C-alpha cells in the first residue's frame, strides 16, 4: 500500500470516548492521531475509584470493585502498542482548517507546534464538572468537610489499602453522618446549569451504598429532586440502597452551615412538607457536568452548532464526528458506545478504511 | 416390577444354560454371543465369540474365575455403525464397566443385549487354575453348592479376590436380562428376569413365557446375608486403607514397590484412552534431562514418576472406577490397588452423588455441571 492511500484521522481528547474511538479507528485500518491536553489518558473516568456497574460487568462476584485498573490498564496497553495510533499527550489543538477529507491541524505541545494533515476528525473533548464554589450556600469554599463527589473518589483512591481507609479531610475521623446533595449546579438556571447531568444520581447512590455497606452504622442521606438515572438496572440499584438503609429525602437543600463544630444541612422534605436540619460530618456535593472550556472554540472551527446548554450538536459536516460527553452528560458506557458509533461513521466516510474484525 | 420366568434344570445347571444360549442362536434372537466357556482342559474359563450353535460346548458363566474384565470386548466389537445383534453374558462388575464405557462413548449398546449373572465372587487366577487342574469335572458346581451352603470351608479354604470380598453389587438388576442363582435350589431351577423392555422382547423371542412373580423368600434372605457380609468387609478394608494412606507419604510408602509396568492401566476396563498419557513421549525424559534432574535433586528414584503415574491415573478414572479389582490382580508387585481405588473412589463418587456403573442414566460427574455439587467437599 502506498503511503498516500492510508487514511488518517485526528481524535481530540483522550478520555474513554477518545480512547475507544482511536482503538476502533485504528482497527479499521485508519492512521489515528490521539491528542490529549493532560499528561495522562483516561480523562475523568480514570479518576473514579470504581464504576457503578449495575448490569455492566460480567464478572460480577469475581472481584469486589470493577475498578479503574480493570478497565483502563488493558486499554492503555492496546492503545500504546497499536501501530496505527500515535498518542500526543500534553498537546492542544491550536488551529483547524481545511475541508472534510483534508484538514490541516496545528498542534501545540508545550509551545512546540506541529502541523498535521488528516482526512477526518473525531471530537471527544468531554465535559468538565461544575465548580461547586459558585454556590456559596453549600460552603464548598469554606468548609473542609464539604467535598465534591470527585474529591470523594480521590479520597477513596488515595486512602485505598490504608488501615483507616476512609477519613474525612478536616480531622481524619470516619464520619458518622454523610449527606449527599444531588443536582449541585444542575437543573438550576439561576446558579448553575439548566440541564440535568444524568449520571450523578447513579454515582451518588453508588457511593452512598458503598459507605453504608462498609460502615453499617453510618447514617447516609441522599437529597434529591428526582431520581432519574435512566439506565438498565438502576431501579434494582436504587432499591438495594434503600434496603440497606440509605435514606432518600426529596427536596433541594437550602444551605450547609457550620454550627459550632458540626456541619448542618438545612432542607425541606417535599414529600412530608417538614423542614429538616441534619447534622453532618461530611457533605458530598454531586456536581453536574457542563461543557468544557475551549470546546466551543473547537466546535466553531469544525462548524459544529452548539445546543442551548452549550454542548455540541452531533450532526455536522461529513468527516467530523462527535463522541462522549462533548455531546452532553453521559455515563462511561454510553460514551464508549458513542465512540464506537463515531469511529464507524468516520470509517464509513473514509470508506477506504479496511473492514477488519473489531476488538 | 421386572418380569421373570423359572427355568427348570434338566440334567444339570450348566447344560441347561448351555441349551438356553443355543436356542438364542437357533431362533435367530442374536447374531453373535459373547459368553464365557471353559477351555478344553478345564483349567480356566474365558470369554468366547460364538456365531453358530456348534460353538457352544462348555458354557460356564458361573465359574469362580475372572481372567479379565470383559467390558473391553464390547469396545472392540462395537462402533457407531454396528449393526449385528450381540448378546453378552457378563458379571456385575463387567456390566458396570460396560455402562461407564457406554457413557464415555466407547461402546455402542444399540444392538447389544446385556445378560448378567449373579456373582458369588472369583478366586485369584493362579489359585483357581491350580485348583481346576487338581479337580475332577464339575468344579464350578461343587463350589457353587459349597458357597450356597456357607460355612468356613466353603471355598476349600481359599479366599476370594479382595474386590469380590467387598463387592457392592454382586447382582445386577438393570441388565436387560439377569440369570439369578443366589438363594435358589440350583438342582431344580434358575430364575430368568427381564429388567428392560429389550430384555422382555428378547426372552419372548426365544419362547419364554414371562410372569410377574416375586422373588422367592429364600433368595431375598440369601441376598440380605450376602450384602451384610460384603458391607462389613468393605468397611474394614476402607478404614484400613485410609489409615495407611492418610497422607502423601503414606501413599508413597504403600506404592513404594511399584515397578512402573503400567499393568494396572492395561487391564483396567475404564482406561479407554488410545494411548495413555503416561505412556506418551511427553513424560519420557531425555537422557540429559534425567541426568540434570539428578544434579538438581541430589537423588532421583528410578523408575521415575511412579507416584505421578498413580496419582494421575487415579485423577483420570476415579469417578468411573467400578472396583472390579483387575488392577490389583494384575499387579506383579501385589500393590493393594483395589483397596486404594475403592476407598477413594467411593468417597469421590459420593461427592457427586454418583456410583460408577450403577446405571446408564446417571450422567458422568465430569460432563455435568450442578451448581450445588461439591459444597460438602
Amino acid at each position, binding site marked *: 500500500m502506498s503511503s498516500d492511500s492510508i487514511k488518517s484521522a485526528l481524535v481530540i481528547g483522550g478520555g474513554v470516548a477518545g480512547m475507544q474511538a482511536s482503538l476502533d479507528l485504528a482497527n479499521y485500518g485508519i492512521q489515528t492521531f490521539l491528542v490529549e491536553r493532560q499528561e495522562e489518558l483516561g480523562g475523568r473516568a480514570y479518576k473514579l475509584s470504581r464504576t457503578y456497574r449495575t*448490569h*455492566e*460487568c*460480567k464478572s460480577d462476584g469475581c472481584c469486589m470493585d470493577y475498578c479503574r*485498573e480493570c478497565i483502563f490498564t*488493558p486499554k492503555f*496497553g492496546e492503545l*500504546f*502498542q497499536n501501530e496505527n495510533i500515535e498518542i500526543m499527550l500534553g498537546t492542544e489543538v491550536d488551529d483547524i482548517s481545511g475541508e472534510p477529507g483534508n484538514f490541516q491541524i496545528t498542534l501545540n505541545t508545550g509551545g512546540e507546534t506541529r502541523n498535521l494533515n488528516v482526512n477526518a476528525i473525531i471530537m471527544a473533548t468531554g465535559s468538565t464538572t461544575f465548580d461547586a464554589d459558585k454556590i456559596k450556600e453549600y460552603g464548598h469554599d469554606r468548609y473542609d468537610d464539604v467535598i465534591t463527589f470527585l474529591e470523594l473518589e480521590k479520597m477513596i483512591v488515595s486512602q485505598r489499602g490504608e488501615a483507616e481507609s476512609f477519613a474525612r479531610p478536616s480531622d481524619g475521623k470516619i464520619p458518622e453522618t454523610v449527606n449527599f446533595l444531588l443536582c449541585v449546579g444542575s437543573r438550576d438556571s439561576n446558579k448553575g446549569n*439548566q*440541564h*440535568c447531568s*444524568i449520571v450523578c444520581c447513579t454515582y451518588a447512590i453508588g457511593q452512598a451504598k458503598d459507605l453504608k455497606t462498609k460502615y453499617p452504622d453510618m447514617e447516609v442521606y441522599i437529597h434529591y429532586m*428526582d431520581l*432519574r438515572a*435512566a*439506565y*438498565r*438496572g*438502576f*431501579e*434494582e440499584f436504587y432499591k438495594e440502597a434503600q434496603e440497606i438503609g440509605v435514606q432518600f429525602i426529596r427536596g433541594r437543600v437550602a444551605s450547609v452551615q457550620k454550627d459550632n463544630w458540626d456541619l448542618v444541612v438545612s432542607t425541606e422534605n*417535599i*414529600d*412530608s*412538607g417538614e423542614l429538616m436540619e441534619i447534622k453532618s460530618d461530611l457533605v458530598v456535593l454531586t456536581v453536574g457536568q457542563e461543557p468544557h472550556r475551549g470546546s466551543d472554540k473547537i466546535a466553531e472551527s469544525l462548524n459544529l452548532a452548539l*445546543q*442551548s*446548554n452549550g454542548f455540541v*450538536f*452531533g*450532526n455536522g459536516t461529513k468527516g467530523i464526528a462527535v463522541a462522549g460527553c462533548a455531546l*452532553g*452528560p*453521559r455515563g462511561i*458506557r*454510553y460514551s*464508549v*458506545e458513542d465512540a464506537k*458509533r463515531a469511529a464507524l461513521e468516520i470509517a464509513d466516510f473514509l470508506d477506504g478504511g479496511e*473492514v*477488519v*474484525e*473489531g476488538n | 416390577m421386572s418380569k421373570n420366568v423359572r427355568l427348570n434344570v434338566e440334567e444339570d445347571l450348566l447344560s441347561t444354560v448351555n441349551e438356553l444360549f443355543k436356542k438364542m442362536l437357533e431362533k435367530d434372537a442374536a447374531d453373535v454371543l459373547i459368553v464365557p466357556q471353559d477351555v478344553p482342559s478345564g483349567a480356566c474359563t474365558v470369554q468366547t465369540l460364538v456365531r453358530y450353535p456348534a460353538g457352544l460346548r462348555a458354557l460356564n458363566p458361573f465359574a469362580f474365575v475372572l481372567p479379565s474384565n470383559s467390558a473391553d470386548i464390547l469396545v472392540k466389537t462395537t462402533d*457407531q*455403525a454396528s449393526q449385528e445383534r450381540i448378546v453378552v453374558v457378563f458379571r456385575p462388575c463387567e456390566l458396570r464397566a460396560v455402562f461407564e464405557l457406554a457413557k*464415555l462413548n466407547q461402546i455402542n449398546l444399540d444392538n447389544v443385549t446385556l445378560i448378567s449373572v449373579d456373582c458369588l465372587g472369583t478366586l485369584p487366577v493362579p489359585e483357581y487354575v491350580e485348583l481346576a487342574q487338581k479337580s475332577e469335572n464339575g468344579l464350578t458346581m461343587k463350589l457353587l453348592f459349597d458357597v450356597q451352603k456357607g460355612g468356613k470351608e466353603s471355598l476349600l479354604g481359599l479366599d476370594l479376590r479382595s474386590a469380590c470380598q467387598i463387592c457392592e453389587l454382586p447382582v445386577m438388576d438393570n441388565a436387560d436380562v439377569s440369570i439369578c442363582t443366589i438363594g435358589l435350589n440350583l438342582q431344580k431351577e434358575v430364575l430368568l428376569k427381564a429388567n428392560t423392555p429389550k430384555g422382555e422382547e428378547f426372552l419372548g423371542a426365544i419362547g419364554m413365557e414371562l410372569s410377574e412373580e416375586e422373588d422367592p423368600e429364600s433368595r431375598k434372605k440369601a441376598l440380605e446375608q450376602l450384602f451384610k457380609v460384603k458391607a462389613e468387609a468393605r468397611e474394614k478394608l476402607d478404614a484400613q486403607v485410609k489409615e495407611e494412606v492418610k497422607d502423601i507419604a503414606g501413599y508413597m510408602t504403600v506404592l513404594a514397590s511399584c515397578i512402573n509396568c503400567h499393568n494396572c492401566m492395561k487391564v483396567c476396563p475404564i482406561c479407554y*484412552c*488410545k494411548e*495413555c*498419557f503416561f505412556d*506418551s513421549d*511427553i*513424560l519420557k525424559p531425555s537422557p540429559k534431562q534425567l541426568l540434570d*534432574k539428578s544434579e538438581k535433586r541430589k537423588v532421583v528414584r528410578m523408575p521415575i514418576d511412579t507416584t505421578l503415574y498413580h496419582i494421575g491415573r487415579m485423577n*483420570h478414572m476415579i469417578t468411573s472406577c467400578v472396583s472390579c479389582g483387575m488392577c490389583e490382580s494384575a499387579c506383579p508387585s501385589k500393590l493393594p490397588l483395589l483397596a486404594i481405588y475403592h476407598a477413594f473412589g467411593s468417597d469421590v463418587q459420593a461427592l457427586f452423588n454418583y456410583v460408577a456403573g450403577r446405571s446408564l442414566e446417571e450422567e*458422568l460427574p*465430569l*460432563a*455435568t455441571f450442578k451448581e450445588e455439587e461439591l459444597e460438602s467437599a
Partner: protein
Amino acid sequence: MRGTSSRKPKIGVFFCTCKGSIGKNVDLNELESRVKENPDVVLCIRHDKLCEKDGQAFLKDQISNTDVDRIVLVGCTPRTYEEVINKGALEAGINRHLVEHVNIRELCEWIHPDEKSATEKAVFLVLGSIARVAFAQEVLDKQVILKNNNVLIIGGGIAGITSALELIKNEISVHLVEKTDKLGGRAYELDTQRLSEEDVILPNINELIKSDKFHVMLESEVVDVNGTLGDYKVKIASKDKEEELDVGAIVIATGSELFDAIRILEYKYDDADVIDFFELEKMLVKDEVKVPSSGEIPKRINFIQCVGSRDENKGNAHCSLVCCTYAIKQAAKIKILYPDTEVYIHYMDLRGPECGFEEYFLDAQKKGVNFIRGRVAEIQKDGKNLILRTEHIELGDIMSLPSDLVVLSVGQQASVETQKLADMVHLPLDKDGFLGYYNDRFEILDRRGISIAGCAQGPRGVARSISDAKKAVREIAGIMKKGFTARSIHSVIDETRCAGCRICEELCPYEAIYMKNVKDHVTEESRLISSVNLAVCQGCGACAMACPGGVPQLIGYSNKEILAQIDELI
C-alpha cells in the same frame, strides 16, 4: 522471523528494575549469577525501565545484536505491561510465544520483606520460566475464512432492518425472519421527531426489499439453531412449511413487547377512552386527537406513567427508560394542537436517558403541561366520565381528577421469542428476561457470531436501536467478508490419539468443540473424534485438563513446557 529449530535454545534474560523499585529485597546480583549458570542462557542484562521508549529501543538493540531466539522478561506484573514491553521483542522479530514474563515485583519484591526468601523465590520463578521458554514453539497467527458468510437476522423491527441494510451495504447476503406479516415493528408507526437534537431518520424499507441480497421470510419463526460461527443450521417454521437455512452468523433483533395494560385492572384499559401511548401516537401522527367514544376533542387528558413498570406486583420490576420522554413529547404536542386542553402527567420520577431531556421537560412545563407526582390509584367511571383517583405526594393530598381521555404509558418487556431464542443459542438472560448481559460490555459480538441489536437487550429508543444495530453488524460484516485471525492460543487435538469420549465436548464452555468423522489411520474405518472450531476457542484449556489422554493441547501451554517449568519450581 528467527528460526527455532531443534538446535539448542539461546535465551536472553532481561531484568527490568522498574526505576530501582526492584532490587531492595530481591538480590539482583545473586539472581543474575544463578540465571547465568543455566547453559541455555546466552544473554543476561539489566535495564531501568523497559516499558519506556529508550527501554524498548535497548531491548530491540540487544536482541538484534545477539543471536538470542527466546526472551525472558523479568520485572513487573504482565497484567499491566506485558503488551507494552513485548512490543520491543516482537519488533525485533521474536515470536510472541517465545517470550516469557516473570513478575518479581508483586510476587517477590513487594511481599517478601526479607532478602533471602524474596531472592530465593525470584530465582525459582525465573529458572522456571527459562526452562519453559526453552520448550516453547513459535506459533504464527492463523487467518480463518468462513465456510458460509450469509447472515440471518431474527426480527424485522428497526434494529433488524438497520442491520440488514448495513450488511447489504457490505455485500453480504441477508435472510430476515419476521414473525408478523410485515416489516418495520413499532418504530415506523411512531412520530420520530427527536428531542433537542436532529430528527431520527428511519432507514428505507423499500431500498431493502429491492436488494437481491435480501431474503425475507414473513410470518415465520426460528425453531432450532445448531452449529457455530460460519456454519449455522437454522430451522425456520413458516405457516405451511419448515425449512433449514445455512448461515454464517446470526443477529438477534427480536425486540421487546409492550406491557399489556389490561393486566392492571384498576386502570380500566378495556374502556374505550383509556388508551395506551402507542394508540395515542397513531392519532398524533395524523395531527388530531379525538376521544374514541364521543369523537370530540378531549378537554382533559391524563397521562399515567410507569404502567407495568417499576412495579413488581402487577408488572415488571424494571424501568422502561423511554416512556417519560414519550409522554412529555406527546403531552407537549397535544398542547400545541389544542392549547386549551388540560394535560396532566402522573409520574413517580421523571427520567430520560438522553441529554436534552431536561430542556424538553422545562419546555413542556412552559407550554402548560401539569406534572403531578404520585402513582394513580385507580380510574373510576362515573356515568360517561372517567375519574382518576390519585395521590399528590407533594401536597400529601388525595385528588379526584375528571378526564376525557386517559393515556397509559405502558413499559416495554422482554418478548417470549427472545427468551426462546436465548435458550436455543445458549445465551444468558438477565433477570428481567432481556439479553442485556452482552450489551453492557465493551464488546458486543459473541465469539460464536451471534450479535444482539435493539430492544432484545433491554428497553431503548429508536435512535439507540439504530446505532446499536450499526455497531453490532459492523463487526459481523468484517468477519463475514475477510474471515478473522484465530487466537494464537487455542486448543489443538491429536486426531490419532482421540478416543472420542466427548467429555471435552460436554465441558467446553464456549461450545468450541464439535465431533467429526475421520478415517482411522490404522484401520481406515471412520470414527468420531473431537475437533476444535478456531473461531470460537478461547484457549481456556478446560479440554486439555479434562482429557485423561492429554489429547487436546493448548498452544503455548503444552505439557512439555508446563512440566519443565514445574520441574524447576519444585
